[in-house]
């Protein structure tokens, strides 16, 4: 178990990920040019790279459940949020307005549903062993995460929820993922048996299993879903309320 070696050699150069990121960046540049807020886009790409190509991804590949959960949170919660922040200020979509204000439940269900759906035991295991399923999981996490954040972080104010509704949206989302996190932390339930199964001899980082006992590994996964994830939602709630207090022309009421 050599941490230095992992940090140096644990990187991979998955052509699909690199190609996807490059194509996406080109498309983004073509569509928005200098109007895009590039710093946020670079941050979003960095998070994607961290989640999919870094040593973290190497450990998430069947070795540690907690690494898998970190990857999951980065892809579902962090990268899509940063991506929305990278959009130009006035950007809007024709379908987006009714989507956010009339059907906030859709975005909410996308965000929370993604968390629960991909942790059904069969799917969690399948995603850990099968390449295509993993690719589908990655893409769906990014897409559903974007859908989730749209009513909160959409660039145009009219696409966003009213502050009071936004707070309720985020608070209930926090409860939704906490519930799963609590179950994983406090009960002995096993949802991803892959992370317990013996590893193939070809897996170069297998000895990192020894970092935590199986029970601790699962607990850390649950706790990640519970405490840090909720901290992100709480931070977003603070953002909602400070926007409400800050902008003189902002929606005067929390809700209507």
């Amino acid at each position: 178990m050599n941490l230095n070696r992992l940090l140096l050699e644990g990187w991979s150069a998955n052509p699909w990920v690199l190609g996807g990121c490059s194509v996406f960046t080109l498309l983004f540049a073509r569509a928005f040019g200098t109007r895009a807020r590039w710093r946020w886009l670079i941050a979003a790409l960095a998070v994607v790279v961290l989640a999919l190509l870094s040593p973290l991804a190497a450990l998430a590949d069947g070795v540690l459940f907690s690494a898998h959960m970190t990857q999951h949170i980065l892809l579902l919660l962090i990268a899509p949020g940063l991506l929305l922040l990278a959009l130009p200020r006035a950007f809007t979509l024709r379908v987006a307005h009714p989507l956010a204000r009339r059907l906030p439940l859709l975005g909410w269900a996308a965000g929370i549903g993604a968390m629960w759906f991909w942790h059904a035991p069969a799917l969690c295991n399948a995603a850990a062993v099968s390449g295509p399923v993993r690719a589908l999981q990655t893409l769906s996490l990014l897409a559903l995460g974007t859908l989730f954040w749209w009513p909160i972080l959409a660039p145009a104010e009219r696409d966003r929820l009213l502050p009071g509704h936004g707070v309720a949206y985020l608070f209930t989302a926090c409860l939704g993922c906490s519930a799963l996190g609590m179950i994983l932390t406090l009960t002995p339930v096993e949802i991803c048996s892959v992370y317990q199964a013996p590893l193939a001899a070809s897996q170069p980082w297998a000895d990192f299993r020894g970092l935590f006992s199986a029970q601790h590994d699962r607990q850390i996964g649950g706790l990640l879903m519970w405490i840090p994830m909720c901290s992100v939602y709480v931070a977003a709630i603070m953002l909602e309320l400070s926007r409400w207090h800050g902008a003189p022309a902002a929606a005067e009421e929390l809700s209507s």
Partner: protein
Amino acid sequence: MNHAAAAPAGSLGPELSGEAVRAHWRLAWLSTVDHKRIGILYLLFAFLFFVIGGLEALFIRLQLAVPNNTLVGPDTFNALFTMHGTTMIFLVAMPALFGLANYFVPLMIGARDMAFPRLNALSVWLIPLGAALLHFSIFTGMPKVGWFAYAPLSETPYNPELGVEYWILALIVLGIGSVATAVNLIATVLCLRAPGMTLRRVPLFVWINFVNSFIVVFALPVLNAGLVMLLLDRQFGTSFFLDREGGSAVLWQHIFWAFGHPEVYILALPAFAIVSEVVPVFSRKPIFGYEFVALSSVAIALLSFAVWAHHMFTIGLGRAADTFFVIASMLIAIPTGVKVLNWTATMFRGRIRLTVAMKYAIAFVIQFTLGGLSGVTHASAALDWQTKNSYYLVAHFHYVAVGGVVFAVLAGLEYWFPKISGRMLSERLGNWTFWLMTVGFNATFGIQHVLGFVGMPRRVYTYPDFTHWGWMNLVSTVGACLMAAAGLVLAYNLLRSLRRGTSAGDNPWQGWTLEWATSSPPPAHNFVALPPLRSRRPLWDSAHPEQPDPPVGPSGPLLIPDRGKTSVWTLIASEAAFFGTLLFAFIYLNLSPHSGREAAFSLDLKMTGIFSLFLFSSSFTLWRAEAAEARGHRAGTLGWLGLTIGLGVVFLAGQAMEYVLLYREGAVLQSKLFWSSFYLVTGFHGFHVFAGLIALLIVFGLIAGGRFAGRRSPLVAIGLYWHFVDIVWVFVLATVYFLPRFL
């Protein structure tokens, strides 16, 4: 519409005199629905139980004054600290804070009363009911289990006397009352603000109490869920928290602290609210960083739900869990520290007037900071293992609860008593109280930090004559006696002022918020006219038209949500917390190795599915009833509504049939943990369906009787609740009927 201008004149005018006034006086306090009188009732109950809880504390301290003392025996001592803790939290701190909120939130937003005055009266009268239940245990053997009643100590084998039952019932009653108060406060703040009183302009006292009400709504039902489970254990032979059959005492701790930690903030936030009003007025400066105080309150409220496990570092949650909760608990210090900075920055370079109220506020800031800092030391698991259940812990939470909460309430009392009574309190006597209280408090609890570090455990009824223990305990007891003396001077000051205090006038402190814009005491209708509201300090603007505060936000018509729907949504939130806890308990108890897998297979899914369809279709028929009402079709409304009620009855009948069949097969409440938790979850759901049916029947009767001719009935608001119980059933089906088969 301006509530104040449209309100009728006060009912108790000067033309009533003599016998009529006395008769009115006698009855009025029993039947009152006026938020001001109810607020005073809250404060009176709080004062009464402060005396009782204080005497209990005094006996505790007298017993511990010297080593090997024999004033009270061990059993009495256990009963004393149990009653002291329960009384001080549920019968003193919460009523006092709710009382001030009740009195001043409507006044500060320019409202005529609370949103639901009769519900308000119910809430306040539930306090004496709960108190009577708790103190009835004097006749049956008092509870001796501590205020958190850890299982299995609180279970029948270890505490067979009925005192614990009365303790449970009292807390359930008080919890329901608190949720009702919170629902009422939320609806009041959202729906009854005067024109111009936007949510960004409300005084911090209002905003923080508003935020706090959400904690109450979510936290108290969690406790009530745990309490009914404990009651089932004790009275019906289940074993949720007993080791036999795979029950879990740790589950009780999770449930209790999932309520208990937010409860700390339920007490602390309103204290912050009071101090955030008192400090600016006596510093002659607007609060520094209103937005930071407002937002940090929300952050505290949210974080308070995520850190309960720091009360459980010593039960062995594991290193992973400990680490996360250490960090999360320390995070709470940030928003709290922000507030301390705001208060001190408000005082900085202000023209401070050292009134008694301001002295209490300053002492609050210092003592609360000390209590907060010792709290951060407890957040470190390694240190917590050493100091847990020592007097260091006792010192910590008394610095928060007394040095913080009680001092803030006293600051509020000194500040607002002139408004409530129309008379000033004596500053001279107030200073005596303040110094007796401050010296007494710090003597009592300051030294307990040291006692804890030298190893004195809490909850021991006596101790051997170790070096230094004796004199330190004596100092602590002397301090407690000083606090008792402070209480006597305070009581004398209040009574003296009521009889012959100088008249206060409308605004003795030159306050800026709306409660000072009316007479002292305010008339029954609160306001004759309101000043224009453009900023957070309307009275400053009126007094200084040449340099008013910059207006906050645009002034337009307020968007006021529907009162009925607001309250039902809030109720639904609290019910969701209740069912969430029950479902979590079900999962916790059944996903263990002793899973109820086999038992789950003996459930008849086909039958349940059919009856579930009846329940789900009732949501559809109710929606049609609402649509028919919107079109003005009374017959259609009644028809669809009747069908809804019928479908609900069929569902309940189906559930009853299921119960009968299961009981015949021997699947009784006590037979297995799976069945205990099955009946717990489905039973409470059935009970809520039943309650929803009653509500729908009442609406049906009223509509049929033509009560709402031409107006919209509360059908939509009540309907929300019905849809909610249907949605809960989806979760119950998934968790209770399906999940155990797959895991």
